[in-house]
């Protein structure tokens, strides 16, 4: 039972990250390689506010969201001055910078040793310290994020995100500034990533920079691409696919000495098949050209 609850919580963290990424890549056409940076900053700020400042989880999370909004400005600047692949390369550089800071700014982040003893969240004297109670809490947070995105994508604002994705020049010819909509997509996405980071930090009670590297950013992009760009259920399906597939492959009986590598190969082949035969992903409405 605990195993399944653990998988559920991990799935939920990735669903939040995939939804945030989908707003950028799927709805606004911004292929960011720095999503793990915002996820990591959210986790670190939450952890530091909980352990060093002694704030409650809700205040720590609020602080992390605000910090992520402020630190979004490099990406907003990239988005206003760079397009397509050049934007992706700039975000890649930003991801590398953030990773380097997390590894090397020892006075604040404790470098590769990370931050330990992050307390579990609690409200009104109740602490979500058991696995079932934490799973309920993370489900509630994930559901709230999901409902937020469902609501957002029914607004005229979301239509503008899609317009920016489809044709920026046409947007300008109708008096709309693409940079305004890109900025809001980036702000919302980084704020939501902070929520995933905060959940991650309090669930594992320990964070270190290895959880927020470029590999993680690529994993999040793969979730959105496989699930399908521009579709909420695609982000959910992509996150489930990526988290559950390695777990399913565990049940294939392979000699222990090669099990990990064979599982990864099967995993990679399945991904190639998905990309080849379903270029729009499971539920996608759009693909990068």
């Amino acid at each position, binding site marked *: 039972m605990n195993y399944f609850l653990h998988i559920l919580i991990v799935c939920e963290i990735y669903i939040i990250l995939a939804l945030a990424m989908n707003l950028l890549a799927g709805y606004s056409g911004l292929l960011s390689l720095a999503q793990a940076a915002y996820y990591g900053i959210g986790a670190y700020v939450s952890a530091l506010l909980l352990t060093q400042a002694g704030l409650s989880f809700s205040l720590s999370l609020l602080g992390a969201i605000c910090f992520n909004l402020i630190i979004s400005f490099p990406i907003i600047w990239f988005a206003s001055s760079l397009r397509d692949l050049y934007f992706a390369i700039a975000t890649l550089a930003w991801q590398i910078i953030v990773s380097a800071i997390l590894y090397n700014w020892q006075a604040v982040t404790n470098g590769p040793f990370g931050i330990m003893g992050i307390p579990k969240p609690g409200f009104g004297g109740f602490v979500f310290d058991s696995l079932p109670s934490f799973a309920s809490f993370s489900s509630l947070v994930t559901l709230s994020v999901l409902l937020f995105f469902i609501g957002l994508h029914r607004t*005229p604002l979301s239509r503008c995100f*899609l317009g920016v*994705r489809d*044709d920026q020049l*046409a947007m300008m010819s*109708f*008096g709309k500034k693409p940079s305004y909509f890109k900025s809001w997509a980036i702000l919302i996405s980084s704020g939501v990533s902070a929520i995933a980071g905060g959940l991650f930090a309090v669930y594992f009670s320990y964070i270190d920079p290895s959880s927020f590297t470029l590999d993680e950013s690529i994993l999040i992009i793969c979730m959105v691409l496989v699930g399908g760009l521009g579709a909420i259920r695609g982000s959910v399906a992509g996150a489930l696919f990526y988290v559950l597939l390695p777990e399913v492959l565990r049940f294939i009986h392979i000699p222990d000495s090669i099990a990990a590598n064979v599982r990864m190969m099967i995993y990679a082949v399945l991904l190639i098949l998905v990309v080849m035969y379903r270029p729009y992903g499971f539920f996608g409405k759009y693909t990068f050209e």
Partner: protein
Amino acid sequence: MILKVLNVGKSFNGLIVLEDVSFELETGTITSLFGENGSGKTTLFHIISGFLPPSRGKIYFKGESIYDKPATEIDKLGIGRTWQFPRVFKNLSVLDNLLLASKKHPGEHVLNYLVNPFKIWQEEKKRKEKAVRISYDVGLSDKLEEAAGRLSFGQQKLLSIGMLLINEAELLLLDEPFAGLNVIMVDAISKLLLQLKEEGKTILMIEHDRKKAKAISDKVLYLTKGIIREDVGVA
């Protein structure tokens, strides 16, 4: 007079595209702009619509100088344009394309969701009704839910004009509205343009099909070697 272009010139790294272009457009008229390929017709459209700054000259729209205004500001004043290859939002439905082209929607500004969300949905409802009306005008009422990218080339051109209408453009700059269309589509667009003229819209169109364009034009401009020559009363 709605538009006055005075001694406009444009050069790219010493290559002169527009030498000295001057002309005026009266409100509620259709004007055709002819010229060889590469004569600078589309460059002139880019300059009037704010996508390119002129190297020199002056441009007035309803008496106001628009010389140094960006495209987003010029649209707000009432100048709308189409492109040689229709720039519709291909992954969005026809209805969403029309709604996206509408001007000053309160739902496009994030703070309005906090201040007055009710107003956003009221406005959205009104604009949907208007978009449906315009879809009838441009003959796309049965395609509202269809993705714009799935429409035929001619239908995309009609949609582009519909987007200018919901955008409340007073001056429509149409880049080759008849190009690549069959006779039925050309007739449909000709009728639509004449109807818009009756409603007081001013149209300046680049066209290569001189016969078709002259049939509905009040005035014809020829752009040759960067200079405009004018024929009046052709229709």
